[in-house]
């Protein structure tokens, strides 16, 4: 069943490491966000995690403008990639994202104010684990540990497996957050090193899944079922990002419950009410947020759907997130 850690893949592309997290597995945790995703959810809150390679970002708030700086308006920056529009309120630089595609870490580092940065960098397993280890006392006291998130952490299966195995060696609890749209060979490489698997059931109907997420959910559901059956010792927690008008309906929740309840190692089903915290990040990447007009679900809807889950799990207390 289990496969050994691949020593030839000691590095991976890490988006960021976030300490003091409390919602992605037991206890206090450190979330390690990996780059690359195999889905394109229109509501994505972490767009900077989608591309598999490091990518340029631009934070206009940090730009001091052409008069004071102007570094990116000259070579070696590509012609036309950065510009100051005539007649603008200020002389801050704007990015032509179509012409700035060749900008890498070396160029971004020339920006003296840090307005230009790269999302994502190559890190070794030990570099990541040393960072995670800084909060080891919290993990011991709370039963916490490290959660791999993304993006889709299973897209870097060797790196993820090595990270998780290393975390176990250092005595940390391990969790992953995944949508599981990867070949099974990726899944089976990583799961032997996982204590808790948080996994998304985004939509029930395959055609609708394809419309909103990019591919249908056939392979995803097959992977979930196989994972439940192959790894009985893992705590599986199902999740649904709840978006009004898309999947915040009773039918979807009941369909997910019908899918997970026969498997006793699926210990919970969490609702994640849609939020808009990620919107601003699209601007940093020059992307357009496609779900702009959607609202967060109402408390009543969340409470009602949560009550269905609580009933299925034989609980009386609601566990939906605020």
């Amino acid at each position: 069943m289990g496969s050994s850690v691949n020593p030839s893949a000691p590095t991976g592309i890490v988006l960021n490491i976030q300490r003091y997290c409390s919602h992605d597995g037991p206890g206090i945790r450190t979330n390690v966000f990996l780059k690359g995703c195999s889905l394109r959810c229109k509501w994505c809150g972490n767009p900077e995690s989608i591309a598999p390679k490091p990518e340029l970002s631009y934070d206009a708030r940090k730009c001091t403008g052409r008069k004071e700086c102007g570094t990116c308006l000259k070579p070696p920056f590509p012609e036309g990639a950065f510009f100051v529009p005539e007649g603008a309120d200020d002389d801050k630089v704007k990015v032509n994202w179509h012409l700035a595609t060749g900008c890498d870490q070396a160029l971004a580092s020339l920006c003296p104010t840090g307005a230009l940065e790269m999302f994502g960098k190559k890190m070794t397993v030990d570099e990541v684990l040393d960072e995670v280890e800084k909060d080891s006392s919290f993990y011991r006291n709370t039963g916490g540990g490290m959660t791999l998130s993304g993006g889709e952490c299973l897209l870097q299966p060797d790196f993820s497996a090595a990270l998780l195995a290393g975390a176990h060696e250092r005595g940390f609890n391990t969790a992953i957050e995944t949508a599981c749209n990867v070949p099974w060979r990726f899944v089976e490489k990583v799961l032997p090193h996982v204590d808790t698997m948080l996994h998304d059931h985004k939509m029930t109907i395959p055609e609708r899944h394809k419309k909103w997420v990019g591919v249908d959910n056939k392979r995803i559901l097959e992977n979930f079922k196989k994972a439940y059956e192959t790894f009985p010792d893992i705590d599986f927690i199902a999740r649904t990002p709840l978006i009004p008008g898309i999947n915040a309906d009773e039918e979807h929740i009941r369909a997910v419950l019908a899918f997970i309840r026969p498997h006793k190692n699926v210990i919970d089903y969490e609702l994640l009410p849609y939020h808009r915290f990620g919107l601003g990040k699209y601007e940093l990447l020059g992307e357009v947020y496609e779900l702009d007009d959607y609202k967060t679900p109402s408390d009543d809807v969340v409470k009602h759907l949560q009550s269905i889950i609580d009933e299925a799990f034989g609980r009386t207390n609601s566990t939906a997130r605020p």
Partner: protein
Amino acid sequence: MITEIGHGSFMRRIAVMVGAGHVPGLNAVVMGAATAAGKLGWETVGIRDGFDGLLYPERYPDGGLVTLDPGLIANLDPNAAGILGQAPRVDPFHVRQVNADEMVEEVDLSDRLLEKLKAEKIDALIGVVGGRGMSILFKLHRKALNVVCVPRSIENDIAATSVSFGFNSALSFTIEMLDRVRQAAQSARKIGVVEVLGEQAGWLALQAGIAVGADVVLIPEIPADLATVAARLKEKVTDRRPWGLVVVAEGAKLVETSKAKAEPSPLKASLSPLATGEASAYVIHRTGHAAEAVATGLQLLIAEETYPMVLGPWVRGGAPTAVDRQLGMCYGAGAVRAIKAGDYGTMVAFVPPDLKFVPLTEAINKVRTVPLDGGFIQVARSLGICLGKEL
């Protein structure tokens, strides 16, 4: 496929493509290009759905290219939807697709596109595109593709040309709708606040506002102070005239008073860094937000009732005006003239009374905004239209 046909003329095969985003009367450009090319003895083909017709010919049982022969052009309805169709994303450098492992990814198909154009023996490409499309075609031109662009913009914000194709149709429709809103406001005795397209430039709001005699026009070029607007409305809205009309470009900016702080949430801790709240300056506010913000803000400052409306995407449909039909034909024929002259990497620009060919570098990375000392601003002020800021 360049074949000499005597007298220094060459037989060519050219292609026309349309970028993302509909504007009325795209067929006029196609007709102009194909007709002018036909007169030179050239063959013109249209690429279906952006570049999809070339990149994915298997999706098109009738072929991904449309031969724009004289018989087809003669029967083309200039009022109908574009014969070439459109794709929501037109960027061969960044094509989203599902790979063999059923995973979504973005790939660079620009080389494949260039190979396909070569295989189809296409000598030059006419792109009917907006600002973003122009940057993409500029990149293709840097990869040695012979490109001529036709500027297409509802907002008329493309630099180096006086009028982009599609603007006049949008302006006419906007004026018609504002007239209707005014009638509704009169009968309801309220203040209609209408949001129109114009994220970076306020031409549509300003010209339409002047045409219908709006009380207030707010454009991106002039950050507006709602207190000033409210004071002017108090003067204008009286018992004898108990209604008002405010036109707001979607990119209009309000002079900031106090910005609400992002609500703290435990969810944020589980997101990657840079996650912000809705009230952050990072949030991209799009359709409908400007009208709502202005209508709500004004209602708190004056005694009258306001109601927000959004024209938004409505203006992208419908039939083209006479001006756009003529302009489309001119732009299409002009692009063929540029190809004949070998002026590649250019945009056809309407600089009355002439059509000129300007390098793409003069059009990209620039926005044609409303000059604050220009004629339209002066006209608006002389008509008593409040522009959100006192002189």
